């Protein structure tokens, strides 16, 4: 009843970790209030992309009440149920499609109807995961938890910053409960894949990127395939741009990834070298999941059945650390974090284990 709702209200301040808190609130069903959103800024309040994200959340749920204060510096979110279905959303040009897609990855499997989400906007930028990475890395991470049949991201059109014009379609099935993972063996890198894309520039750019990346990576393994993905005409969006995304897959299907995106005045070779080196950097960090996907894995681990889930990770990113704290607020679950192999003190790999909350998709319909 109303009194209960107010007692379980969680309060946060600041605009940081906005998406994680929204996601956790939607999943746990606890209302959340975020205050002082850029209250000291000269341009206070929610940014357009944050407001757009809230609108998207309203579209994918039923019964969600979002109250935004007059100045936009505080919001109150009373979550409803996740309804899913067929939704179209136009993303603002200030952030890429990835910004909107990332939080939905952990929400989508628990909806009432399978997700069929079309997002329009910028597909690749340097802040959020590009659609290539989401397709090739995030979705396999989601598959670890039993979300597999029909999970798909279709890149209909590409759109680079600043004008965008891209379009992706995200299809996600619903599940009853997330599988508990026990992913502790990182294995060894057995293959490297990559996608080099170039829109509204010379198609040679992607080949040049591939060449340059190979010059760094060829020394390790021969199983390297870097695809050149060129979109033409209408499908290539409104702005020129190119990028290279790389992923390294291990024998136990652990994936690490990196990406770098074109910016004015940087040659494709430099982009490629940057991507390749950050991939090596990522691989050297170790762990079974990619650093950028720690958040996704942590959330899904908490949502698992009431069993112990374990996962080996490299150093935790600050976002993950804050997420761990937020998870405790929303779900009351704490993780056990131990060095993965105590024998070697210099290794920074961690073994995170938690007891799942036994989250069952209550939105699923039986009839």
């Amino acid at each position, binding site marked *: 009843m109303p009194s*209960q709702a107010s007692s379980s209200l*969680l*309060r946060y*301040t*600041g605009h*940081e970790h*906005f998406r994680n808190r929204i996601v956790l609130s939607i999943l746990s*069903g606890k209302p959340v209030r975020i205050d002082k959103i*850029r209250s000291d*800024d000269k341009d206070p309040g929610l940014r357009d992309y944050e407001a757009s994200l809230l609108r998207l959340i309203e579209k994918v749920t*039923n*019964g969600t009440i979002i109250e935004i204060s007059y100045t936009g510096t505080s919001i109150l979110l009373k979550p409803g*149920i996740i309804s899913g279905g067929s939704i179209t959303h136009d993303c603002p040009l200030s952030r890429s499609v990835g910004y909107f897609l990332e939080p939905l990855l952990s929400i989508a499997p628990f909806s*009432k109807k399978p997700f069929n989400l079309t997002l329009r906007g910028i597909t690749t930028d*340097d*802040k*959020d995961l590009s659609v290539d990475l989401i397709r090739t890395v995030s979705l396999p991470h989601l598959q670890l938890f039993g979300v597999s049949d029909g999970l798909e991201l279709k890149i209909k059109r590409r759109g680079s910053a600043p004008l965008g014009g891209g379009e992706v379609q995200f299809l996600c099935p619903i599940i009853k409960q997330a599988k508990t993972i*026990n992913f502790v*063996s990182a294995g*060894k*890198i*057995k293959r490297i894949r990559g996608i080099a894309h170039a829109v509204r520039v010379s198609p040679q750019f992607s080949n040049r990127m591939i060449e340059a990346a190979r010059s*760094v990576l060829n*020394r*390790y*393994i021969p199983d390297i395939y870097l695809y050149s993905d060129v979109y033409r005409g209408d499908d290539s969006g409104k702005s020129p741009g190119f990028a290279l995304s790389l992923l390294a897959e291990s*024998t*136990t299907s652990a994936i690490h990834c990196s990406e770098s995106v074109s910016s004015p005045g940087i040659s494709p070779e430099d982009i490629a070298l*940057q991507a390749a*080196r*950050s991939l090596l*950097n990522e*691989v*050297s960090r170790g762990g079974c999941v990619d650093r*950028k996907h720690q958040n996704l894995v942590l959330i899904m681990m908490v949502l698992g059945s*009431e*069993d*112990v889930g*374990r996962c080996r990770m490299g150093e*935790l*990113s*600050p*976002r993950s*650390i804050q997420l761990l704290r937020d998870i405790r*607020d929303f779900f*009351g679950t*704490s*993780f*056990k*974090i131990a060095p993965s192999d105590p024998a070697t*003190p210099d290794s920074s790999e*961690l073994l995170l284990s*938690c*007891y799942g*909350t036994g989250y*069952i998709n*209550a*939105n699923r319909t*039986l*009839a």
Partner: protein
Amino acid sequence: MDERERPQKPHRAAKEGTSAKNKGHDKGFNEKAFAFKSGRRADRQARRTVEKDQTRLHVPLVNRTPDDEPPPVIVAVVGPPGVGKTTLIKSLVRRFTKHTLSEVKGPITVVSGKKRRLTFIECNNDLNSMIDIGKIADLVLLMIDGSFGFEMETFEFINVLQAHGFPKVIGILTHLDLIKKFSTQRETKKALKKRFWTEIYQGAKLFYLSGVLNGRYPDTEIQNLSRFVSVMKFRPLVFRNSHPYLLADRIQDLTPREQVRNEPKCDRTITLYGYLRGTNLKESTKVHVPGAGDLVIKSVSLLADPCPLPASESEKKRMRKLSEKNKLIHAPMSDVGGVMYDKDAVYINVPGSFTRRQDGEGGDDDDVVQGEGEQMVMDLQDLKSTLADGIANKEIRLLGSSSAPLTVGKSRHSLGGADDSGSESESDEGEGEGSALGSEDDEGEEDGEEGSDEDDQMEEDEDEDKDGDEEMNVPGPSRGRSSVRRHARSTRGLPADTAGISGDIEYADSDSDLGDLDGMRQDFDRDGVDLDDEENSGEEDDDEAPRWKSDLATKALESFKQNTKRRRDLVKLIYASDLTPEQIAAGAELGDGGDAKGAHGDGDEDDFFRPKGAVKTSLAEEVLDQTKEDVAVDALAKWEDEALLDSIRHLFITGSGGGDEDGAQPDGEGYEDEEGDGFEDLEADADADAGPSTSQSTEEARAAALAAKKEALKRKFDEQYDDPDEEGAKMDFYDEKKDEMARQLQLNREEFDGVDAETRALVEGYRPGSYVRIELADVPCELVDNFDPAYPIIVGGLLPAEERFGFVQVRIKRHRWHSRTLKTNDPLIFSLGWRRFQSIPIYSLDDHSIRMRMLKYTPEHMHCFATFYGPVTLPNTGFCALSTLGLDLAPFRIAATGVVLDIDRTSVIVKKLKLTGVPYKIYKNTAFVKEMFNSALEVTKFEGATIRTVSGIRGQIKKALSKPDGAFRATFEDKVLMSDIIFLRAWYSIQPRKFYNPVTSLLLANKTEWTGMRLTGQVRREQGIKTPLDVNSTYKAVERPSRRFNPLRVPRKLSAALPYASKPKLMKPQKKPTYLQKRAVVMEPEEKRAITIMQQMKALRKDQVSRRKEKKAESKAARLKKLAKDEEKKSEKKKDEKKDIMRKIGQKAKFEAEGGSRKRRKT
């Protein structure tokens, strides 16, 4: 001679050896005897075995109850009053523990075997209790009065069980000795068994208890029953396997007395004690107490098991039987062992007078001999000094390492902000980390304040004993609390609002002065385990110290060690420090930033109100919520270094080194061959890596490494060359799943094995099987005031989703035995999940998969949907609905049963709405229609909608007309008549009313008298209001005037102009008789005669008929007369009967008015 007379020695069969083995099978095993005669038979046999094998299979379910220390099995004894429930429990308890109970109140836990404990609970005849018990019982002993037969309550209970997952049921027939005739008894048994089997399942176990001897059932029969109970296996039930729950065996009010005195209706803080069941309970879990409502857990703490299983492993193996020492009983509400716990007091019965015993005299055996309470009082006598002495001798050290103790006076001064509000500091990690002064200060202060709680516990307790009004918290002597417990620190750091804390109050001798502290007392002795290590070990190494205090020092040392030897502990950094995530990620240590302990303390509640991002001010450039981290180009520049590039080679399958990992070595070879010179330095590099390490390591290490390597190689070899069919293929789906579950359970057990209890509770929650104390805040005072041990208190944990409310769609079927149909918008009581609540359902049916169409009433013998507003429950949860909970005359109170299908925030139910209109102008296929709408705006809303006439002509709304408001032009497929009614079929969506009324039966003084929302009719009846009657709604005889058609008149002029064929043919009626009428007939004599004869015969016949008729009428009248007589007789008899019934009803009413109990209802 002698030899012949002596009888020959009888043959002794060999007891061992080959001859003994061959006994019975002299010629060995005869294979032919069991061979199949025909192939077909063999085939059939094989099929049969396969089929039998399939029946064994059930859907694999994870059992979350731990195998090693399972919680006691809840055995509920259910049955109508007077059937012998209490006698049965007494008999069983005596059978298991040799203990004769004087009264049976609340749950009674006994140890029944080496691995099993049982909790007996008696269920009273209230439907609320039956529902609650049906939700938690593992085994139900369903008692049936053999001399009376089944009663409605029994059937109601069975239906409740069916809706909430069927636990095991054993039927018990009693009062069979009342049936004197043996054959009748046998018949009764047979009939009851048949009925029982149809209700439960064919072959369900039914026991017969013959009679009562010495207030107990016969020992042999009880022994048989107890054997069944103690070996019964249980299959996990889905709902209980996903929710934590607890059956409280003890309740205690922690609200300060003073507050209660000032404000008797204030919300209370209570603690409930019991064994956890189901899944792990986390402190953050919301709980529902059926009958009281949703409550918030304030804290959970682990207690020592009051009724533990036989402790040591060796003992378990060695003993076949349970030793007397281990036959424990725990029944806090039922006055066992001289201690009885009430809601706000503990009563200790001490038989006769007792004397103080010498130490060492009793030994361990005393625990068994003495009652618990007696032992407590004995402990109290172990007192050497008075309270004042204790305070005088007490030394307080500010820090664990400080050498000079503080004096009492000083410490008083140092406490600027003294906290007296029931909070106390938790020092579980304080000593180790050398943390801030503030918290230590608190500890010191408390020590002073509470008058050195540890060693003065005894005085206080003695006072309590005298007082009889306080909670006693001396743990049992042999049950030293072994684990560290957490406690939320709620108001730590708040400024003290009472300035009046002065020494003399604190140190007062009288209990009443310390009254406001009693809320804390419990917590102090808990904290004492690791709090007061120095003082206690220093001062209390007396011989007289009770055992529970003995090894405090060692425990404290252990916890200290645990804390210090940790290196950078991320768990603590993340969950218990103020450091920002960035600082932690950058590798900050605990001491760097905030005070770890302080942050931990308010982590529970104050966390939410602390600005998280406050550390980061806005002057820095904005940090975006972005996934990709900004790449520092210079950081990546290091990867230009060849050595660094080579250093991560081992992470790729082509690289060597770290061979113990699962990297695919054989694959690597292939790659090397292909690669060529790119990997020239591979071997050298590996050697270089390996070189120093091997040189450093000793022989042993090398041997170990070699062994490990060999092991890995062997494993690899096995994997590759072993026949995969041997294990993998032999496991079918079922076995595979079971294996997977077993592995996961194993992992669950092992993962947190080495972790200390505190972290474990944080990460994992409290495990089922542990005995815990749950503190609940803001409990309605009625729960405590109206507490009755005969009504079970259950704490049911809720999943995160279940705290919310929404529209619940269920599939529902009215129970066949329920006498009335259910009507939409009539309130109904649901028992769903843990909850019992009243809500207002709307029934609906799926109409051709297009819409959900509202139903006014539930259909007969058919499922339908119902939607109501209520708490979210997971789909696939069963429920039952009740029309009433009270003891009124409803013959069968279970109204419906069903299952949850869907949860939503809106509902899609529609009901039909017909708009009618009439044509006022008709053209060919066009008509102008009025009276359907009121305005042109409404018409525009419905433009294009299909309409229909009563005669079935279809049409469409075209456009609004300007003239009469709401009129419109419509086209039809044919010409409509002015007399036709035109209607538009529309669907109006309706939402169930947002009404949720929890059944708070436990809060009532009389628990059976709960009334929820009443039906309108009920309210009217009770208040004597007549049903308002709309004049337009009254039924009247339908008048249908016959239609009169005017004759067609053609004007003469027109008629004249018409052609002949079209002219109306008007003819006058004939006036003159016709020829046939006019002519005369002259008959022949022959004819005349014939006609005469015919006339005579007809006359005769006529006469005959009339006479017969007369006779019949006569007999009919006689019969009617007789019937009337019978009728009169009958009505006379009926009148008598009615009189009799009314007299009986009157008697009953009178009896009930005088406080009688409910009459039994026979089926």
